[in-house]
């Protein structure tokens, strides 16, 4: 890792405004959050192994662990990994830009993200840690002894970071594409991340104002959520989900985008029905994302007409997502697939997405939620689509672009063994949760002596989580090992046609491209088939 001209220079990393280095900073932060929140997940699983106290000595310890697990996984791992790391490192390279539109604002975003991580970590060691779960519902979050302020500020810092990121990348894609690059020549990843940023830009402010009201209620004595004084408890839930449902597509879309890039490249195939996928698929998700949030409030006592209306819109989301799936599946058709590690994960992702997405369908039906809502069925649903599908897509993307970032390959036996631990482990962990969910196992229970019959399922799930933990630790070891001592990669190991592989060295230096990039009208990043 040494460099002839100047070796590792900490100052140049901390104060960097280069999108690739900022990307790496995002990756380090996000993976650290994943490791810590994942460690908490294992403790959660050990606690749920049987009814009664197992590893925590009180419910409050468990609640803080679960708060941190949920909030950190979604807000500090998944969203920053996708819209921070992948967007930063690869989007400018894919569109042939030398950097993003506002490099300093980009540096501003990444340090806001780190400030949020610091705050989240500090919140674990203070006397009354936050215990409001990642949803932070009042009145509980207002009346609790826990430090809700740190939850609110973590959300503020991350939210502001994301909004600035959204502006930066929207402007970058609109104005800084290589000369000649039309909208229908963009990588699928660029399209999906663009859509994700549009969602972030519009919906984050709503979340920000919701948690701000929470802060005012708790610390300034206002009554936004206090019905006795003219406030409304459901107001918070509406505002919260108005953001947090679209947020799941902020996670889903870029993950699908990564999958498209990996599958098309490793299958040496064109994207099936590109325009329909982009304009109807991604566009449809964008159009519907903001009209379905009530499906998180199906049993919250909202008026019946809105429960039924949003049942229909929620079900209809399966249509644009289904179109994206048609393209994803179609891209396999008549492909010529080489199975590197990235492609292993990508293949697994197809099934995880199906399982996770389809189990959203009963949850989308208002009446089904009368039994399934707030049970571990919901856990299993979103772990499949988010914790497994999106996380595996991230792992796939890291393997795929590993040579780009380090100049070395991360392939090998260790990677494949870790893959099998992961994929087998997650299925053992989360299928039992579907089963007991249907039978009524509630969420967020640190103990369940009223449901002793579920203990055997929890045993299985806990053992499964150990396999995942092993797989994840091996994966991490493999990455660190390969980054420093891995086999040197050739310039374009997967023979891709995309600009980030064809026009820059591994890793790219300052300014990205040795020569200015222009593309011709018939070029596409998936131009394999003769």
């Amino acid at each position, binding site marked *: 890792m040494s460099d002839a001209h100047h070796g590792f220079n900490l100052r140049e990393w901390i104060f960097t405004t280069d999108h690739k280095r900022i990307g790496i900073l995002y990756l380090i932060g996000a993976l650290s959050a994943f490791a810590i929140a994942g460690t908490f997940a294992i403790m959660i699983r050990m606690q749920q192994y049987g009814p009664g106290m197992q590893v925590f000595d009180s419910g409050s310890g468990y609640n803080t662990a679960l708060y941190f697990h949920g909030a950190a996984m979604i807000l500090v791992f998944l969203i920053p990994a996708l819209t921070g790391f992948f967007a930063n490192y690869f989007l400018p390279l894919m569109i042939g830009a030398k950097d993003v539109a506002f490099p300093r604002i980009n540096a501003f975003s990444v340090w806001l993200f780190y400030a949020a991580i610091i705050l989240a970590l500090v919140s674990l060691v203070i006397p009354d840690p936050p215990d409001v779960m990642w949803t932070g519902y009042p009145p509980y979050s207002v009346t609790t002894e826990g430090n809700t302020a740190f939850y609110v500020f973590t959300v503020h810092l991350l939210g502001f970071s994301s909004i600035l990121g959204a502006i930066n990348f929207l402007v970058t894609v609109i104005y800084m594409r290589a000369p000649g690059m039309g909208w229908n020549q963009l990588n699928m990843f660029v399209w999906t991340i663009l859509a994700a940023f549009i969602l972030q830009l519009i919906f984050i402010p709503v979340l920000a104002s919701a948690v701000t009201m929470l802060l005012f209620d708790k610390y300034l004595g206002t009554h936004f959520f206090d019905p006795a004084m003219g406030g409304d408890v459901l107001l918070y839930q509406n505002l919260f989900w108005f953001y947090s449902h679209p947020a799941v597509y902020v996670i889903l879309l870029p993950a699908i985008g990564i999958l498209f890039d990996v599958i098309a490249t490793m299958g040496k195939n064109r994207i099936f029905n590109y325009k329909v996928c982009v304009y109807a698929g991604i566009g449809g998700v964008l159009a519907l994302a903001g009209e379905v949030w009530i499906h998180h409030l199906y049993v919250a006592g909202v008026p019946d007409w809105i429960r039924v209306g949003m049942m*229909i819109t929620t079900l209809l989301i399966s249509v644009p997502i289904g179109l994206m799936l048609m393209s994803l599946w179609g891209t396999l058709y008549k492909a010529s697939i080489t199975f590197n590690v990235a492609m292993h994960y990508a293949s697994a992702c197809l099934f995880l997405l199906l399982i996770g997405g389809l189990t959203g369908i009963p949850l989308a039906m208002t009446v089904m939620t009368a039994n399934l809502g707030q049970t571990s069925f919901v856990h299993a649903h979103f772990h499949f689509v988010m914790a497994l599908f999106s996380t595996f897509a991230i792992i796939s993307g890291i393997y795929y672009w590993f040579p780009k970032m380090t100049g070395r390959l991360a392939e090998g036996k260790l990677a494949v063994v870790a893959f099998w631990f992961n994929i087998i482990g997650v299925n053992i962990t989360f299928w039992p949760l579907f089963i007991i969910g249907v039978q009524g196992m509630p969420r967020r229970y640190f103990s369940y002596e009223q449901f002793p019959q579920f203990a055997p399922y929890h045993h299985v799930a806990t053992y499964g989580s150990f396999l995942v933990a092993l797989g994840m630790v091996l994966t991490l070891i493999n990455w660190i090992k390969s980054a420093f001592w891995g086999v040197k990669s050739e310039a374009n190991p997967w023979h891709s046609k995309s600009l980030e592989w064809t026009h820059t060295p591994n890793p790219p230096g300052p300014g990205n491209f040795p020569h200015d990039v222009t593309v011709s009208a018939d070029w596409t990043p998936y131009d394999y088939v003769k």
Partner: protein
Amino acid sequence: MRLLKKLGLAVLLMGALALPVWAYEGAPGLATGDLTPARRWDILWDHVLVDLWVIGVIFGLAALYMLIKYKAKNPTDVGTATKLNKAQAVAWALIPVAVFVADDFYLAAQGWTLWGIYRRVPENALEIKAIGHQWYWEFDYGNGVVTQELKVPQGRPIVLRMHSEDVVHDFSLPKFRVKEDVMPGRITYVWFMPDTVMDTIVTCTMYCGVAHSQMYGKVSVVPPEQYTSWLESAVKAAADQQTTKVKG
């Protein structure tokens, strides 16, 4: 020949677009009769499961097949898919859309029907008040009887009018497939049909603090006569208590 192709495509598309309409019309609702909502829930759940398994298996097998079939024979090979022409592109959009929309409408119609039943409280329902506290449930039968165990007579629909004294809770009766949030400032309701004599539990499924998972109570369905006699004695006990309180 080209005209024929176009015509064929047009017919196909129209057929596809008719699908949602058919699905909606064809949604049978659920078999009527004396089924309890919980039983209907189970039937609908089976329908939904079949639906999802069919979709899942089709997509899953297709993926599996292609992943195996199109494995590269030779590292330098490239894929051979051709670019779709306009008609193909449109057909590959509209036909799946129609099928998906059809399925969604089918599920929506089924769900809507049952939801209607869930929300329409039968006229002869027995009304009881349920109150959520951190961390226990209280049931108010009117006439002074307040308990922490829900006792209901078999064979009569029960409707619970619910609110919370502190934070948001969720009244969940897994046995009867119902749940609804309980919160300060609003009154919500659920109804269910206790058709057999049994003991079961109500539990809280909305995170409400440190003892959230301990917030459960006994629910017993008893024969009507037993219920009446229990209520009578409970009313008397409550009245007695009231008088001792007044005296003391």
